[in-house]
């Protein structure tokens, strides 16, 4: 049985204007991600990885082409609709963790649920569950600056799971971590994929990291290539 396609990029172009010069960050990128897949998009810096990530993550819309998320074309949606999709369907893990420093670990995990209007009790329960999953229950009342890099990234993983998204997007998730901590974070992602069947799209420039995924797609000069 063929698996359902969860993300589909069809001839996606993204062009930025820098003064009078047009810069093509993506040049006709096409990609299909199936449900339950762990995909790595690998490419050198400047290859358009981050732009691709922003497109898949509904943070930006393409200049040309079509992006379908769960069969719905998102390339023409308004910012408020995109925000809703981001909140419900996508979980982000960033290279720099991007936790809110004023909130505790638990509150950081609760925040995406707050934006979805989930009642407080449910939010608390879910966030504690997720903290248990990333083995940080004893750190739930700590603020990000009281946690190590690895711990912060695990909180970010827990946060990305808070609204039970259809896909997790990880942008260089180990980029700011040492190799041992990085491995541990990757192990968490693999565990999530294996045990819960979560769809994960990971962007990296590191071959070793990319090899941890089920499938690797190579990105060069804004389009998918066979190899680098």
């Amino acid at each position: 049985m063929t698996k359902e396609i969860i993300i589909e990029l069809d001839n996606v172009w993204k062009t930025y204007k820098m003064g009078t010069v047009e810069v093509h960050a993506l040049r006709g990128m096409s990609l299909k991600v199936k449900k339950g897949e762990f995909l790595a998009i690998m490419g050198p810096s400047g290859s358009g990885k981050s732009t691709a990530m922003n497109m898949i993550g509904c943070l930006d819309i393409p200049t040309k082409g079509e992006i379908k998320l769960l069969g719905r074309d998102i390339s023409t949606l308004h910012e408020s609709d995109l925000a809703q999709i981001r909140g419900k369907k996508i979980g982000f893990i960033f290279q720099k963790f991007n936790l809110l420093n004023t909130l505790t670990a638990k509150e950081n995990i609760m925040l995406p649920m707050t934006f979805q209007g989930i009642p407080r009790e449910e939010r608390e329960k879910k966030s504690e569950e997720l903290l248990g999953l990333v083995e940080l229950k004893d750190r739930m009342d700590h603020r990000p600056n009281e946690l190590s890099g690895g711990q912060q990234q695990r909180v970010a993983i827990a946060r990305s799971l808070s609204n039970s998204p259809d896909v997790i997007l990880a942008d260089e998730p180990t980029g700011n971590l040492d190799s041992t901590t990085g491995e541990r974070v990757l192990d968490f992602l693999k565990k999530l994929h294996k045990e819960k069947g979560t769809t994960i799209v990971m962007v990296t420039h590191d071959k070793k990291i990319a090899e941890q995924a089920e499938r690797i797609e190579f990105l060069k000069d804004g389009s998918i290539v066979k190899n680098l």
Partner: protein
Amino acid sequence: MIKDYFKVAIKNIFNRKLRSWLTMIGIFIGIAAVVALISLGSGMQKAITSQFGKIGANRISISPGGAIAGPLSENLGSGILYSSDVEAVRNVKGVEFATGPIAAYVELEFNKEIEYVALMAFDDDTKTLRYMEEMGLAEVEYGRQIKTGATREVILGNRIANDLFDKPIQVGNSIYVDNYKFNVVGIQKKSDSSMFDTVIRISKKTAEDLFERENPSNIFAKVDDNYEPTEVLGKLEKALRKEHNVDEGEEDFTIEIAADVIESFTRILTTVQILVISIAAISIVVGAVGITNTMYTAVLERTGEIGIMKAIGARNSDILTIFLIESGMLGLVGGLIGIFIGVGIGKAVEVIAKAAMNSNILQAHFPWYLILGSLLFSFLLGAIAGTMPAKQASKMNPIDALRYE
């Protein structure tokens, strides 16, 4: 959800304590000034209304001199009331009662000390006495009232008895009024207005006999409850014009109803209040601009945070609400502190005024609408001041915001 946004806002405010405090100073100085001024103004209004309330709306006061006497008017201070005027007033239909006290400035000697004080001489009949008691001008604290027909009896104002001479004067003491010996039979209760605490009171008959005065300083009248005071006022004017032989518009006397006096006092007070509050409003405007400035800085500083929130599902309206609540809270907390300071200032002025003037006229009054209104106003002011920065925050592109260092 809104509750959670309030929590986030409070956390953010506490995170930059110093800046928040500095921002709030402008608001709380303004609100403190407004609260203090309105409370004192409204206290004063209340005091005036209650003073005149004692007199009653159906009480009429006639004084010499034209009412519309401008600085160049020949009527200014030129009027005299005659004892025959009192009779004329009494004869007007609808006047229940009228009395014309004599006022004078006299020499008072006690224990070989001499002071100069005001003297008031009323009729000593029970009706007049009751009328004056109703007005709060003749309540005796120690001793008794002047007996009907008694000639050398005097009642002293509270301050004259207690403060004027080295030794306090007591009931039973003898004093000399313009060299005539009088027996002190009573001491008046301290009144709300210090004016009546520095007056001595004898019977009108005695004043006429000893000091050869007969023209009343004022005429006080009471309108029968069955008649309309303004109607009676018109008749009174007509009667006195005839008595004084003057035409309409050239009156050398002024007739006032208590209600009119309250109104004109209130009008003056309101004008002064509006003026002073306008000045205080400048501080509030400056405070609001301070909030706008702080919120712009906050938006800039937290650009990355805005990007994160947008990435994890915050809509533009969520970001707008968070920042509006935050600026509203700055206003609200500023307002709350301002109210406390304002209440403190109001109370302090009240205590100082009481000590300095020995009067209760300047009492701070804090109606609920002043407190609640100030709170609501300061929250709204904060929110309005933060509208532009909050809009800027909400419209940020999530990618640009995330990239911002």
